[in-house]
């Protein structure tokens, strides 16, 4: 008899999680290179009682379970910033970043130069080129990043470009298996080896914005709130039903 309550509870818990996912997407609506999360649900079957207790066949009860959040890796809009150290990746590629915990991957192309002249992310982690970190010399100016990631500069009074390295771009056969680590970084788990990406193009002077579709997130938010309220009403009615039953059945006539 308590199935309504428990099924309702399973739905509400999942809706709360979905709301958390929506809230995280909305909070990251201006985070460069952010990829939106979407929720997936699964039915979880559990037989209600033993079959012998009923004349007819007892039906299984369906609970709901959140089975996953998949990452929407679609291209985010690119914004022109004219900053020579901003790069947007056109394609499925990722930049490779060296963190204290190992190699990580990012789509956030708002890059900087640190005090040693190395190309770093906004958090200060080295961005890796084909052969280790990319290092600029003190007299370098007019940084130019080609579509294939090749970085050239004018050094001092030279009129001929000097090569400073080539951005390492990688892609993954199963990008869904990447783990979001926060700080705009992804880590590759087992079975997801990074492969060199020669298809993606680098666009200098642009940044890729978050691919969160704010209209869709707002409608999903309303949908979640309404569904949650509906279940609450259902639980309320179930509770009323119990109350009435107890009152009526236990009413001993004087």
């Amino acid at each position, binding site marked *: 008899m308590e199935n309504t309550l428990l099924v309702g509870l399973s739905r509400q818990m999942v809706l709360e999680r979905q709301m958390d996912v929506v809230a995280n997407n909305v909070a990251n609506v201006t985070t460069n290179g952010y990829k939106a999360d979407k929720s997936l649900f699964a039915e979880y079957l559990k037989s209600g009682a033993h079959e012998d207790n009923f004349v007819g066949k007892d039906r299984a009860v369906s609970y709901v379970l959140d089975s996953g*959040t998949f990452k929407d890796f679609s291209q985010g809009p690119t914004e022109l910033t004219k900053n020579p150290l901003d790069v947007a990746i056109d394609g499925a590629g990722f930049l490779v970043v060296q963190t204290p915990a190992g190699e990580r991957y990012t789509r956030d192309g708002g890059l900087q130069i640190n005090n040693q002249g190395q190309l770093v992310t906004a958090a200060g982690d080295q961005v890796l080129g084909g052969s280790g970190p990319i290092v600029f010399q003190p007299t370098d100016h007019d940084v130019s990043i080609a579509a294939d990631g090749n970085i050239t500069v004018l050094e001092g009074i030279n009129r001929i470009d000097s090569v400073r390295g080539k951005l390492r771009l990688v892609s993954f056969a199963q990008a869904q298996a990447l783990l979001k680590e926060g700080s705009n970084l992804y880590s590759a788990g087992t079975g997801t080896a990074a492969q060199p990406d020669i298809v993606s193009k680098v666009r200098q002077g642009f940044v890729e914005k978050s691919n969160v579709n704010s209209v869709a997130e707002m409608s999903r938010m309303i949908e979640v709130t309404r569904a949650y309220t509906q279940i609450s009403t259902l639980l309320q009615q179930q509770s009323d039903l119990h109350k009435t039953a107890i009152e009526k059945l236990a009413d001993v006539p004087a």
Partner: protein
Amino acid sequence: MRALYTAATGMAAQELNVQVISNNIANMRTTGYKKQRAAFQDLIYDHVRRVGAQASDQGTVLPVGVDIGGGVKTVGTPRLMSQGTLAQTGNDLDIAIRGEGFFKIQMPDGTFTYTRDGSFQMDATGRVVNAQGNPVQPTITIPQNSSGLAINAQGQVTVTLPGSTTPTTVGQIGLTRFINKAGLQPIGDNLFTDTPASGAPQDGIANVDGYGDMQQSNLEQANVEAVSEISDLIAAQRAYEMNAKVVSAADQMLQSTSALFR
């Protein structure tokens, strides 16, 4: 309910975003001002069901996991050090730098600060000083009653002394570079100080070795573009509103739960 706190991080981030944008707009006419922008990153994730976890002893793995993120954080407000446009002023001691480098200014306490604002003046003793009266390095004194003050692209200052027909060089204004100029710390008054992030200052001469050249009688305008600031402002305001909506939606969900108690 985590959504409440997640949305709160979003609101805080957008508030900071608006602060940065409004500072850019307020300094749209500040000589040598370099615009800033807020850089955001997502917060740490709670991996409720880890992607790639073993789903059976047959070696099948979960193709997707359940990752719940905690919101957004501000990672920095990097400064965009691009060249501002030059505006002609006709004033002899206005200098704009075209290219890399900063003017070096000596503060009253003996320390050095750096600026792109080249609107210089002469003080009572004839020294070339900035708007706060602090001398430009190396210190240059303009002799009294001299005329025809000229500053060439290398920063050499020449004047014509009374009774002479040929110009005399009285000094050379230097430039200073940093390997990471975005790492300089702003201290107000259009001045920056060096930090461990900017690297050590490298003094040099204008128009040599990649240092920019000097343009007399010009001032460098701020590199703020009104159109992009306004569109950023609108986007930030909308993002703030959306985060506020998430707070009220989460609140509504909590309310419907608490209404179950009677």
